[in-house]
Each structure stands twice: as structure tokens, then as C-alpha cells.
């Protein structure tokens, strides 16, 4: 009885909405750009990485609604996106005059998002830049959105109105290892816009395919991977931390994930890091459903050290 009431509350509305996914603007000819910048100062690094791609003005205009989606899934600051990187992105957005900025997250099942914001330091950053900070788990209203026509397992995705109404999604994941999904970067980070009930369905139906299907409709327009401290060997919490001071940015989430996971496997000392990165199932499946490109020959990587 309780369960059916709960289900009807989530799936009660019959209205199914549509969302248009924009094409990746950061390309050179046919190649999608990925920038890998190394420097001690996070603010400089993030600025340089976005400028190398072609500037943030390509995707954002001042009157847009911008959603910044960090990874604040755990109540452990070593497993969350560092506040400096989030702060750097917010300051870049404020510089070009964006007014409507939201930071939103729905943490892992069995973790309190409000507490995580406080522990990881995101709350202080949000206060400093005066942006909206939203714990999605406390939002009652939900909407159903149709997935892309190439999605295989999921037809609709249940999410929150704030996420659906945003014009631009900026994903700020942290480069980490994951028990089941092998790596957790920008594609897996988008699972943080779902209610608790739907996360369980992802695991029941097959995680890798569902992550790929989710990204056909909620594809991040800009990915800034926080690889300042990389979590290797174990994850998503309690792994070995390696300091690299790297920021990886791209407009193509699949390409960014491929290059980032290559870096992760290099740090672990794997013999063929690129081959292992290409074998990560959800990256491969995301390419199949048309989210981005996972072919090293159609990606141009810009390495720089400041």
C-alpha cells in the first residue's frame, strides 16, 4: 500500500516533456577538443582550460539559466568536487554577467545532500558568490522527460523542474574510481539529477546502458573535470589519493571521460591505459547512442602546463 502510493507520487503525472540537446560547439573541423591543463592555481587552470577550447561565451549568454552540477555525493571532502574548482567556474560565470546560476545535487542513496554541501565546502562558495544552492532531494515536484530516439533501455527520465528548465548544464565531476561503473566522471555524474527511486531502477536495469541513455537527453554542455586530486584503485570513497593538479575540460562528455579515465589508468600504472579507457562500458555505449565520440582519432587533445 505504502509502496504503491509512493510510486504514484513519482509517476503520477502523465505529461511527458521533451528537451533539445545542443551540439558541441567546441570543435576544430571534425575533431572535438579536449584541453588538459596543469597548474598549481585552480582558478587560473580552470580559466585557461576553457579559453583553450574557445571561451565560455560560445555556449552561455547573460540571460541564460545555468545549472552547475558538482559531484557532492558523499559526506567526505576527499570524495567530492573541490570547492576551489566550483568557485573558479562561478567566478567565470559572474565575470560575463550571468545572473541565474544554480548549484544542484541529489546525493547517493543513503547520504544527506545538505550535510554534504556543508562538509565539502560548496555551501561557503555558494554563499560567497551569492548563487542558489538546491538540495534536489527536498524538492517535491518532478517531471518526466523523453529520452533521445537512440536510447535503448529507458524511454523516459524522471527529474526535477529546475534541471529541466535550465538552458545550460555545466558538469563539474571529480575524477574517481568506481566499484561498479569502473570510473565516475561526467557521464556518471549526471545520475545526480535523479530522485532516489530512479537510481535504484538504473541498477536493476543495467547501469552502463542506463547511464548512456540518460546522457542522450541531459547531456552536459560543458564538462570541467576536477583532477586536482585523483582517487585511484578504490572508489567512489576511500581510495588512494594522487595529487596531479590537472583540469580537463571539453564540450563533449564522452571525449572528456575517455581522456580523463586514460589519465586515471596511467596513474594506476596500467600497461595500456588508452585501451582500458576505451573498454569502459558506459563510455562505449554512450558513443553508440550518439552522445559524443570515443574514438581517439577524432579527438584533439591540447596539453599545456602553466
Amino acid at each position, binding site marked *: 500500500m505504502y509502496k504503491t502510493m509512493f510510486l504514484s507520487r513519482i509517476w503520477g503525472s502523465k505529461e511527458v516533456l521533451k528537451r533539445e540537446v545542443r551540439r558541441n560547439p567546441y570543435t576544430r573541423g571534425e575533431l572535438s577538443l579536449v584541453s588538459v591543463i596543469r597548474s598549481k592555481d585552480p582558478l587560473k587552470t580552470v580559466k585557461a582550460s576553457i579559453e583553450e577550447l574557445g571561451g565560455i561565451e560560445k555556449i552561455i549568454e547573460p540571460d541564460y539559466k545555468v545549472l552547475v552540477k558538482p559531484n557532492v555525493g558523499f559526506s567526505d571532502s576527499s570524495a567530492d568536487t573541490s570547492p576551489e574548482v566550483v568557485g573558479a567556474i562561478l567566478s567565470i560565470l559572474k565575470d560575463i554577467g550571468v545572473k541565474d546560476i544554480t548549484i544542484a545535487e541529489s546525493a*547517493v*542513496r*543513503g*547520504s*544527506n545532500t545538505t*550535510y554534504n554541501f556543508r562538509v565539502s565546502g560548496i555551501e561557503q562558495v555558494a554563499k560567497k558568490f551569492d548563487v542558489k544552492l538546491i538540495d534536489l532531494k527536498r524538492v517535491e515536484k518532478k517531471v518526466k522527460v523523453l529520452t533521445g530516439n537512440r536510447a535503448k533501455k529507458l524511454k523516459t527520465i524522471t527529474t526535477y523542474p529546475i534541471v529541466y528548465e535550465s538552458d545550460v548544464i555545466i558538469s563539474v565531476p571529480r575524477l574517481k574510481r568506481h*566499484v561498479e561503473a569502473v570510473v565516475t566522471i561526467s557521464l556518471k555524474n549526471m545520475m545526480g539529477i535523479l530522485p532516489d527511486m530512479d537510481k535504484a531502477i538504473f*541498477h*536493476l536495469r543495467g*547501469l552502463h546502458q542506463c547511464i548512456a541513455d540518460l546522457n542522450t537527453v541531459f547531456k552536459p554542455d560543458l564538462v570541467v573535470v576536477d583532477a586536482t586530486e585523483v582517487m585511484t584503485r578504490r572508489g567512489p570513497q576511500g581510495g588512494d589519493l594522487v595529487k596531479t593538479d590537472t583540469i580537463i575540460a571539453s564540450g563533449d562528455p564522452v571525449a572528456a571521460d575517455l581522456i580523463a579515465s586514460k589519465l586515471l589508468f596511467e596513474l594506476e600504472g596500467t600497461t595500456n591505459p588508452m585501451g582500458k579507457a576505451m573498454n569502459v562500458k558506459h563510455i562505449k555505449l554512450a558513443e553508440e547512442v550518439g552522445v559524443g565520440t570515443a574514438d581517439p582519432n577524432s579527438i584533439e587533445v591540447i596539453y599545456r602546463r602553466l
Partner: protein
Amino acid sequence: MNLLKRLSIILTRSVLYPVFLKLLPKRAVVRPPGAINEKDFLRKCARCGACIVACKNMGSGVLVSCTVHDGILMYGTPKLDTSRAYCEIVLGICEERQPCIEACIYGVLKPVKGVVKLGYVEWDSTKCIQVKQGGCLVCVEVCPMGAVEVGEDRRPKFDKEKCIGCGRCVYACPASPKALRLVPRTFLL
């Protein structure tokens, strides 16, 4: 009359109550943090429900009152229901202030310090999604204590010593019925 009343109270407390405690069936439930031993708990707890209301308003809402199915004597006492939430006393909002313990005026829930062990988790391999079809391991993902490890056969292994019984993995388990169950550490009567 007064004497009769007094006698009956003495009789109930000394003879009938211990007999009922022994004879009536009880289900082992997990008590809120800081609970005293079960025998005194049942005797002292007034079944006022203050801790349950406090948990609902200020905490995560994990506490519910026991039903008659848990035992007639248990009726009204607080227990952890991990199907609706999890206990936030470790790495959660209740770390600094414990609303349930503050709400108790009968001395049933005593103030706690450091790591609180509420119970431990039992795993049923026949219901586990990871064993049946693979692709889950949510329990490993969410454990804040690192008490769940993945073996070489890609199955979760639960460390009873490290487990504190917060119930995060039980709440997060996507299987239906749940493959995990929270069990109290001591339930002596």
C-alpha cells in the same frame, strides 16, 4: 483499597512482568542510539513517542514505533525502520546534536560519545542483485565506514566488526525484498 492497589503494583512488577518478559514472543528490533539494555528499556520507556517526533522533525525520520507484530510489550517503543531512512548519527546531520536523545526525559536514551554501534548488517545472497544479474554493488558505494569490501568473486563482503549499523546500505539496496537486514548487536532478555 490503597493497600490493594499498592499490592497489585508490587505483584505486577515483581512477578507478572518478568514472566511476561520471558513468555511473550518478541522480535529483535534495533533501538535508537544510546539505548540502555533491553530489560530496563521496556520497563522505563513510557511509550510517549517524543524521540520519534523529534527524529521526524529534526533528523532523518528513521525512528518509528513498534507495532503489535513486534510483541505486545514492545508496542509503542521506538525502533529503526531502515526502509524509509537511515540513522544520521555517524557522518550526518545528527552528529553534533542528537534530537532523539535530547527528547527523552525518562532516561532510556543516554547521551553518547564517539562511534555508536547500533547493530550490524546481515546479507542474504539469494535476494542480492549482484549475485543474480550483476551491476549493483550499491552497498559498497554508500558505506561510510569501509565495512563492505568486494571479494574476487565480485560479491560484497560485510565486516561485522567495522559495521556500525547506520542502515545506509539497507536503505540504498535496490532489491525488492531487500537483500540486507539490520540486526541488533545485543538483544538479551
